[in-house]
């Protein structure tokens, strides 16, 4: 089962490496990782999607909490959270296919952010399923390059992690 962990850490050099290394050395697998500073410039937020049963996630959480620079770890997966990923997909395009790609991007509320004689780049945000769906549709044109940010998530309502 997948769990989304929101990890608040001190915004200091080397913290990301401590967090990531903990996963590798204890044999836990990171499905996706995204990191950025929060509303407090001294605090960064790492969002990690980890695969595992409750025991694994409990251990991951406890081990993360032992790191001195980790301030808080919350498991925020499921219906209680809004989850998003951003993907940029560079797809082969020519005069014949351009319109259809634009149409697909529109249906998925994506944006065309670059157009060249032989390619177009689509920007798409959404949950994992949505990104997979558009990727599948665009594949028929030939995907030249694809980049995803990794998931970020926030709890619904006024509650904070």
């Amino acid at each position, binding site marked *: 089962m997948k769990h989304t962990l929101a990890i608040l850490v001190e915004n200091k050099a080397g913290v990301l490496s401590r967090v990531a290394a903990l996963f590798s050395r204890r044999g836990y697998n990171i499905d996706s990782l995204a990191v950025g500073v929060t509303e407090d410039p001294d605090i960064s937020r790492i969002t990690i999607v980890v695969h595992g049963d409750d025991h694994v996630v409990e251990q991951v959480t406890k081990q993360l909490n032992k790191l001195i*620079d980790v301030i808080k770890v919350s498991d925020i997966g499921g219906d209680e959270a809004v989850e998003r990923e951003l993907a940029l997909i560079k797809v082969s395009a020519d005069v014949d296919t351009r319109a259809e790609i634009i149409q697909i991007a529109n249906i998925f509320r994506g944006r065309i952010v670059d157009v060249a004689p032989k390619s177009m780049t689509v920007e798409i945000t959404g949950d994992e399923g949505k990104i997979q769906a558009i990727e599948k549709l665009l594949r028929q044109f030939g995907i030249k390059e694809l980049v995803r940010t990794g998931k970020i998530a926030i709890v619904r309502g006024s509650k904070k992690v």
Partner: protein
Amino acid sequence: MTTGSTEKVNGAKALIKCLEKEGVDTLFGYPGGQIIPFYNELYDSDLRHILVRHEQASAHAADGYARATGKTGVCVSTSGPGATNLVTGIATAYMDSVPIVALTGQVPRSLIGNDAFQEADITGITQPITKHNYLVQDPQEIPRIVKEAFHIASTGRPGPVLIDLPKDVQNIEIDLQYPDKVELRGYKPTYKGNTQQIKRAAGEIANSCRPIIYAGGGVISSNASAELIELAETILAPVTTTLMGISSIPTEHPLYVGMLGMHGCKYANYAIQESDLIIAVGARFDDRVTGKVESFAPNARIIHIDVDPAEISKNVKVHIPIVGDAKQVLKSLIKYIKRCNSAEWIEKINHWKKEYPLGYSQMSPDVIMPQFVVKQISEACKDAIIVTEVGQHQMWAAQYFNYSTPRTFLTSGGLGTMGYGFPAAMGAKVGRPDKTVINISGDGSFQMNSQELATVVQNDIPVVTVILNNGYLGMVRQWQELFYDRRYSCTCIKGSVDFVKLAEAYGALGLRAEKPSEVRPAIEEAVRSGRPAIVDVIVECEANVYPMVPAGAAINEIIDQEEH
């Protein structure tokens, strides 16, 4: 956050002043290019510095000092190879939760990342084996970092902390103000156990007929021996300890059933397997203790008291977790408990004790059995601090010495570091000069740090090393005998060195015992000499450690000497 006056000093001097403020009196170290500014300031300071001969020994010595005294040990080295030589000692301390602070020199900030001479990314290297570490980027941060380092090392679940100091940082002048408080929002250990959980535990204890207390190193590090014994006596429960828990309860206490696990007493393993309630205190259900986890204590409910929440339900499922400091939790638990209905159980255990005593056969009258040597040390040096290396001798020291007070058995339990004992004994003796300190060693282990003979002689640190010399890497040989058809691949080390001459070459006392009658006089002479000494005891070369539970078996599937 800071109080008191400010003074202008360079980073190195600031560091020394901060160490003094932390109550540090002794450092174990080795100088080098990138830590020279620190050593330059040390020249004018009152701190005692023990110059080791290999940096690994400085970390082990700081560790031995910490375990023997309960204070935080400090070791110092230069950058690069000096720092990497500390790694084994730091990892040893990490696995056994020992508070040490390691100070390492680093190349100047301008050279970091350039593969400069003697540069190593020691904070990166030690990340998995330190509780926390620091690379000091701003010299003004030295006071805060030192304060935090000592706080982190010694509180919660103790452990090693490393501070990496670039050379230029040591030279820059700063305004020194030592903070009087630590503020770390990500680090707030829980000491007081949850009252509801403690009451639930008391309820479980009241309902138990076959309880057993399983005590680990956490009892010793939190100084909870008195509470442990009070708990056992009040509820009338047997106590078994891990290797790290040895000396938390006197060996001769009637409720003590010895060590459990791979080389534990048969009756301790039987008791844990048949118990209906395990009260685990400051222990972590290591694989050397549980054997095959699925078969471990099949009918027992488990209460687990530990200061580290991550240890709870890590290896075995726990029914009542209590996060907190062993001493504080036991104190409050004792308020709620009463004697449980365990009289029959105790009788059964006493019966097992009689039926399956620890023992060994004397192979011939002239040969010295290693177990006999440990018993002789035990009789000759009551209340000594026993330090060990790693291997067969370590297990015999765990099985056959009578420990009466805490912090008198120092051993590398988690990492299993050969070469630990001698430098750790040196550190222990520096910390506890009032105590006799004996390093029980194997001929293999001793050669991993024998160069420290120079250190103990130069600094007049009278530790006695008793080498159980069997000419083998004994524990590996034992496994080869039992599980690999006696194919003694690369475990024979006969003819390696004359330990008596080696001792003499360094200016230490060297003695040898080749017959059983020579053992006791040699040990006594070594202790009486008041000098660093080696007693080379030529023991039966194929003696084995029994009982033994093969790796991966259930802990009541025991190989006995007779059965083999």
